[in-house]
């Protein structure tokens, strides 16, 4: 029992993982642009973010089809099966994160070229976006390295996003009675919500990392339960 077999299958599986995790790079780019769009009120860039989501959707379809083929033709089991199942989740989260970037970009034209923006609120949004970007990168690295501790650390990072999101909410409430400014602030709250969801999706990918490694699926964090310790192999 020493000869390694199924090399082609292994290559195919590794290729699928690369494609799925590569989707996170596309999300990071989309998030950078969406943030720039929001902070600079760049309507042209917003339309590019929306159009470029086709690349992420295309990646989703490609990986999804690849997984279906692999399941049908190669019947993976054990660790391979867990990886395939996890990749199906990962690519779905990638697609959802891409959609959140689109949602952010779609809000920008609603306020016109020169909205009554307020810098301190924009700063909070920018910090949230930076934090979410860090999480997007980290969830991909954790998955690639099968590093459960790194995946679990996403919960701590996500708490920072949640904290900033609350700050966005409070700052938006403080922005006075001007109707246009309040409308803009409401839009920024929605932007904050999009970024917060991207963070959640990154944590979800972290949970899939733990599943691949340990074979047990447990939520790292649940609104209705205390934080669970990470599963161990």
């Amino acid at each position, binding site marked *: *029992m*020493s*000869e*390694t*077999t*199924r090399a082609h*299958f*292994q290559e195919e599986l590794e290729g699928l993982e690369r494609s799925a995790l590569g989707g996170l790079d596309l999300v990071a780019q989309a998030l950078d642009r969406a943030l720039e769009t929001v902070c600079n009120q760049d309507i042209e860039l917003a339309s590019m973010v929306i159009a470029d989501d086709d690349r992420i959707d295309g990646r989703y379809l490609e990986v999804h089809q690849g997984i279906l083929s692999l399941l049908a033709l190669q*019947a*993976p*089991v*054990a*660790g*391979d*099966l*867990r990886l395939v199942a996890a990749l199906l989740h990962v690519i779905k989260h990638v697609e959802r994160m891409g959609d959140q970037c689109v949602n952010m970009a779609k809000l920008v034209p609603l306020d016109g070229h020169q909205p009554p923006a307020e810098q301190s609120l924009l700063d909070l949004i920018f910090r949230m976006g930076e934090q979410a970007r860090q999480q997007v990168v980290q969830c991909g690295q954790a998955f690639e390295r099968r590093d459960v501790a790194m995946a679990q650390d996403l919960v701590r990072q996500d708490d920072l996003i949640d904290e900033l999101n609350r700050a966005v909410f409070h700052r938006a409430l403080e922005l006075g009675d001007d109707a246009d400014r309040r409308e803009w602030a409401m839009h920024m709250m929605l932007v904050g919500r999009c970024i917060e969801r991207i963070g*959640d999706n990154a944590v979800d990918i972290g949970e899939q990392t733990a599943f691949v490694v340990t*074979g*047990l*699926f*447990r*939520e790292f964090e*649940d*609104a*209705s*339960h205390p934080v669970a310790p990470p599963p161990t192999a």
Partner: protein
Amino acid sequence: MATQSLRTAVVIEKRAKEDAQQTQRGARQAIFKLDGVGVAYSGKPAVRDVTFDIGKNEITALIGPSGCGKSTLIRCLNRMNDLIPGAEVSGGVHYHGQDLYGPDVDAVEVRKRIGMVFQKPNPFPKSIYDNIAFGPRVLGMKGDMDEIVESALQHAALWDEVKDRLKTNAFGMSGGQQQRLCIARALAVSPDVILMDEPCSALDPISTGKIEDLMLDLKRDYSIVIVTHNMQQAARVSDRTAFFTVELDESEKNRTGRVVEFDDTEKIFTNPSDPRTEAYVTGKVG
């Protein structure tokens, strides 16, 4: 958050399933208890240190590479190795708590209680009816022979296909039908265990599917042990799986089979405990 509620439901459902499985596991009855079983041919060990329980009304699959001793082991379970000159069985093979190799145990009675189906269908050159009636007649079983034959064929899901040609030669049946006939023949003597040594390896996928469906039906009344090289088959039909491997002994001259892992089939095929099992079931080594 709706997504979180859904995820929580999934976790709770999984935990409930685990609990149910544990409860079920606690209620399992062992029909065989194997305790350090080994088999040697002319002094050379073929398989050793096999220890696990085989559950009643379960399908237990034995998987592993060629030469790992799984067929040797399954033959211990109805004393088929007695027929091989130089074969020695060591350790404890307890069937319903009784030592199968005890001095007062009749091997013929053992084989009546524990039937066997082989890789290649091996009907007798007789009619379908006489194939089934052969065992009951030899054993002097009482009762209406027509009923015994019909019941066995019904249990083997073959009755509807052959009821109008019971007196025709069994060799006129398809391979899949012949294998189900062999299963019916084993059932005719009222066993409570059926051993199957690669029962589908000579069959096409349709016939294989019929045998697999049959196995799942039969486990309500019988306990089944199956040796198979088809891991998807083990995954599809069995409740528990034993993975065997081949090891060189201390002298590095003899290859001996050993059990690496024995567990619920779902565990073996989703999250095996031993990396050697993982490597084998995923096909990374052969």
